[in-house]
């Protein structure tokens, strides 16, 4: 007997495909914001499905902090090539060199906030009218109120108190000159859903997500990878740990977790038993209770 209902992953997939097709139909020049992390990889996979047998009709845009895991960049370039897509890069390093932004100082300095200016500049330069992101509402409390189609004013800012209501599956992408939209097709997915989907679809992800040995230092409760960008403090000791990353961001602030999970199946098992949020290892979110809300208002991802 045929079951005439979708299981939850099929329903989430179908919803995301619908949103991606709406973006394509409603905007002139949309891009996928591609960080090399699992959420943007899943997003790209969904775009492949949404437009098959045609090619993914969006360029991928990477906002590059300059502090990358080399594995992420390799992965990005391979994926772009296999899709036959265009890659756009907004460089934080260039923005620093051109004095558009000033690098933070101090031992906990990050380039996280600097991405905002770079992202908004890249959107303006490339005349992007919709940037599709892999943001999920379960990630963080400010994101819980995000829309599928999220309006940004001509300064690129988000006004959470004055968002357009979103009912049924009717998305309003109309805007004035100079404004733009962010679209979040996987809004309703949780971290667990993303992993189950990666497993189900057998989606390729960077090796960093799998357990491996790495040189790290212990900082603010996380294992931070040693890299040429990391300034080691006097009291810090470099050790080798078997770990993997739950999220991939700026290499100087993305902490790994100790893990033996070296296959997708083991990762799914581990994540389902996990008792801490994935952003718990991101120094950028630890700064204050409202740090994500503040960054998002300014135009963050």
């Amino acid at each position, binding site marked *: 007997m045929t079951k*005439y209902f*979708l*299981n939850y992953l099929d329903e989430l997939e179908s919803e995301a495909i619908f949103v991606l*097709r709406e973006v394509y*139909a409603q905007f002139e020049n949309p891009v996928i914001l591609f960080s090399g992390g699992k959420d943007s990889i899943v997003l790209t996979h969904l775009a492949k499905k949404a437009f098959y*047998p045609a090619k993914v009709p969006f360029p991928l845009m990477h906002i590059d902090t300059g502090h990358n895991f080399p594995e992420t960049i390799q992965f990005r370039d391979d994926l772009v090539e296999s899709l036959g897509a265009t890659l756009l890069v907004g460089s934080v390093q260039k923005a620093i060199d051109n004095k558009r932004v000033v690098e933070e100082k101090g031992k906990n300095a990050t380039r996280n906030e600097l991405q905002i200016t770079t992202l908004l500049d890249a959107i303006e330069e490339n005349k992007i009218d919709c940037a599709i992101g892999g943001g999920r509402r379960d990630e963080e409390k400010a994101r819980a109120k995000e829309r599928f189609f999220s309006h940004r004013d001509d300064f690129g800012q988000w006004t959470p108190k004055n968002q357009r209501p979103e009912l049924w599956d009717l998305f*309003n992408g109309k805007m004035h000159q100079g404004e733009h939209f962010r679209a979040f097709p996987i809004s309703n997915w949780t971290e667990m859903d993303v992993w189950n989907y990666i497993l189900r679809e057998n989606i390729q992800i960077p090796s960093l997500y799998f357990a491996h040995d790495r040189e790290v230092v212990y900082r603010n409760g996380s294992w931070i990878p040693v890299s040429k960008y990391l300034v080691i403090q006097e009291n810090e000791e470099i050790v080798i740990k078997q770990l993997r990353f739950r999220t991939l961001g700026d290499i100087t602030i993305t902490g790994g977790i100790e893990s033996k999970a070296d296959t997708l*199946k083991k990762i799914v098992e581990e994540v389902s038993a996990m008792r801490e949020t994935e952003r718990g290892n991101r120094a950028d979110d630890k700064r204050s209770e409202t740090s994500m809300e503040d960054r998002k208002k300014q135009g963050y991802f």
Partner: protein
Amino acid sequence: MENDKRIPKQVRNSINNNQLLRFTTAGSVDDGKSTLIGRLLYDSKSIFEDQIAAVEKTSKRKGLETVDLALFTDGLRDEREQGITIDVAYRYFTTPKRKFIIADTPGHVQYTRNMVTGASTANVAIVLIDARHGVIEQTKRHSYIASLLQISHIIVCVNKMDLVDYSEEIFNDTVRQYEEMSSKMMIKDVRYIPISALKGDNVVNRSQNTPWYQNAPLLHTLETIHITSDNNMVDARFPVQTVLRPQDEKNRDYRGYAGTIAGGIFRVGDDVRLLPSGFNSKIKTINVYEDYVDQAFEGMSVAMTLEDDIDLSRGDMIVKRNNLPEKVQDLSAMICWFNDDSARPRAKYILKHTTNEPIAMIKEVEYKVDVNTLKRLEDDKEINMNDICKVKIRTTAPVMMDEYSRNRKTGSFILIDESTNETVAAGMLI
């Protein structure tokens, strides 16, 4: 849509058996809505340790002895400062049986539009009643909105039972009040549960304090409530979102219509009619990515090809020849107004319906509904923020619609102000 063999069996099974259920909770400041959601998340172990630690810290700072469950649902800074929910917030939790999406909405009358928004996609509505106060004005408002938006199932949670000594009499009395109040509303399925969100009675676990209550606790009810037949599987509707025309050599002849099925079932070989043109054709193929399937049903995002080469584009609809939607240009609808600016008499708005966007004008306000008393106000013709009214609308071109009570997807629309681009109203065809 069959899953492939790569997936370990246990994962495949756990995915396949689980459905998604969306529910809404409307509530005001003191009725315990945030506590209830916090309790569901906490007791179903959906809250991570670092979130618990953060909430424990805040609870202590506020001088509370136990963890304030309501803090788990706190959102934006303004809301935390004012202690209220302003916007719709979405929360997620999963049990071994289902995945849940909660649309957490504010319940005060000034947020009617947010309640409508949260209700628009919900399968189930939870209506909270304070056992000490029984059915009050806001109960009526929340239930009316749930019935207006055609939520098929309502679960009435009589909360704060701990404050009335878990009295069966008080519970039964509340049930009677609710039945009387809701008798004129179109609600298909109502269930009643005595709970204490604060103490946890009958939320996740069956309570020892209510031996007289024989039915399931809230979570079990949410896990088992039958929702599959709430979808319209009769009237086949396929609004075209976009046309797929691959440029490569191999697929040169492929012309696929991409969209999500908004009702019914389509099968390869079905005789279909294309609207609004009225041309007939047959379905040649249906594909979901690389999988070519024999049939596709409501909720599936697919691409279809037709036997004939006919001009068809975004905004058009593919339906079955023997089951057509209404073709309307003068429509009667219930609308909820969302904007600070009142509706301007005879102003033009974009009417967004499925993937179609004709221009429309509100020609007449028949009546306005007082959401607190449910009385019709026939003399008040001004449409202001949060108003719910019955109106007559005229569109520039015919629209293919179904009654909202038959199909939420093809019976709903939004109005967009052409000058501000804002979504100013939500509407339902009656």
